[in-house]
């Protein structure tokens, strides 16, 4: 069993519910223990940097200070939290004036941060710490033949923190393969879904989401396997009907977070995989795997 400090991020309490519930369901079978930080607050995300950079970094530092007390690696599933936490960590090492301002603010509430936290994305933990071989060995319900478009999103790989390739990543593709699924070619796999502006520039974001769905479907994907970022997942899943009404399209492409995918492949039930929380229901697509028909079909085609 490996232990990690866990920072879910605000969206996981609302729109990210399916992603989050599945993460908790797969943690134990994957031999990882995610210990949620007590009384955590928002990381500030990118909008706060557009309001006040120093304040933004100070509230990020509160999270880092709490995590440092645990002495464990800090894991987050949200790509936006991941990028902001890493940025604050690096900036405070480079910019001494900022570091001092943040330090004084933390000290005023009895906290301190010494810059020692190792910040990690949960996809990277699954990839490197659990490992693909161990993951494949735990598969009880192989997703054989399922054609998936692996959507990595933007902030999981950018700016370049050495996590996979920043332009054409393939870690999710490799995870999908180890679960038995077939990743399709998906050139837009690391392009942005526009989530950060989906409230104020809805049309612009819907346009970006449309391009992603189109690219996935045109390449033969039956569903999207998205990263654990709750913003990516919600954009592609919940906003699909808005894409359809704006572009007169008929997308009905289930969007499963990689945590949901792993939950299904590990043989967990629909509830553990939080399938009821998806707006575009993946149940019809997955029914053959739950009834065992998919593995039967595979056995027949093999003989």
């Amino acid at each position, binding site marked *: 069993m490996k232990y990690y400090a866990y920072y879910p991020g*605000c*969206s996981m*309490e609302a*729109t990210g*519910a399916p992603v989050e519930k599945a993460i908790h369901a797969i943690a134990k079978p994957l031999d990882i223990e995610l210990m949620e930080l007590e*009384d*955590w*607050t*928002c990381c500030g995300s*990118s*909008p*706060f*940097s*557009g*309001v*006040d*950079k*120093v*304040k933004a970094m*100070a*509230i990020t530092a*509160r999270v880092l200070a709490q995590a440092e007390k645990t002495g464990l690696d800090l894991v987050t599933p949200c790509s*936006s939290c991941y*990028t902001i936490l890493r*940025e604050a960590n690096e*900036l405070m090492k480079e*910019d001494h004036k*900022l570091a*001092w*301002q943040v330090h*004084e*603010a*933390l000290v*005023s*509430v009895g906290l301190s941060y010494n810059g020692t936290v190792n910040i990690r994305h949960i996809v990277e933990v699954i990839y490197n710490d659990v490992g693909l071989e161990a993951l494949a060995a735990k598969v009880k319900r192989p997703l054989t033949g399922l054609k998936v478009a692996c959507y990595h999103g*933007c*902030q999981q790989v*950018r*700016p*370049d923190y050495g996590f996979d390739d*920043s*332009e054409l990543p393939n870690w999710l593709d490799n995870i999908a393969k180890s679960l038995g699924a077939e990743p399709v070619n998906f050139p837009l796999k690391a*392009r*942005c879904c*526009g*989530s*950060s*502006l989906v*409230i*104020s*520039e*809805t049309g*612009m*974001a819907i346009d970006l989401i449309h391009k992603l769905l189109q690219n996935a479907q045109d390449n033969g994907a039956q569903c999207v396997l998205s990263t654990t970022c709750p913003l990516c997942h*919600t954009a592609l899943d*919940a906003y699909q*009907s808005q894409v359809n009404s704006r572009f007169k399209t008929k997308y009905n492409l289930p969007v499963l977070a990689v945590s949901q995918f792993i939950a299904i492949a590990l043989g967990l039930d629909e509830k553990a995989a939080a399938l*009821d*929380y998806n*707006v575009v229901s993946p149940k019809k697509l997955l029914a053959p795997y739950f009834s065992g028909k998919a593995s039967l079909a595979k056995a027949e085609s093999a003989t």
Partner: protein
Amino acid sequence: MINGKTTFLNEVASIPACDKINECVQCGVCSGSCTTAEHWEYPPRKIIAMVRAGMKDEVLNSNSIWYCVSCYLCTARCPRNIKPANIMHALEAIALKEGYKPPTKTTTMYRSFANSIEKNGRIYEFGFMLDYFFKTNPFAALKMLPLALSLLTHKRMPLLPKSVKGKDQLNKIFHNITTGGSR
């Protein structure tokens, strides 16, 4: 400070992560990479040139910078490592602080977002959206109603905020920064 003068350029360069703006070689990789460049009146490369030329009002009255979706494609590709995305957010912060009124609703969205954090400690998505639509166009909220309802029925839109103890600590941190502990 660059050359000891408080110019617009110096103001931008003094914001964390923006100190390399003078090293930009105007290659245009940022504009060519930008996810939303088609919407920008002045694309990122041009904004950087305008900041260096001291065109403060033109930059801060334009809605260009507000189209940055923080995808960091420009930043990952920039050959001079000047972090264009961070510069855009720094410009947004200056525009808000100095009372510029660019033609965009994103200014209001960012304020609602920041208010939600200050009030609740965490983003309370439902309240943040209500606040934003109330301040911009309550009728536009009607268009979002089907989406809100589908999230609600899929148990993804709690109607009440969570009570977070850490928010008091957070507000003390804000207060310390605002009153300038070290400045």
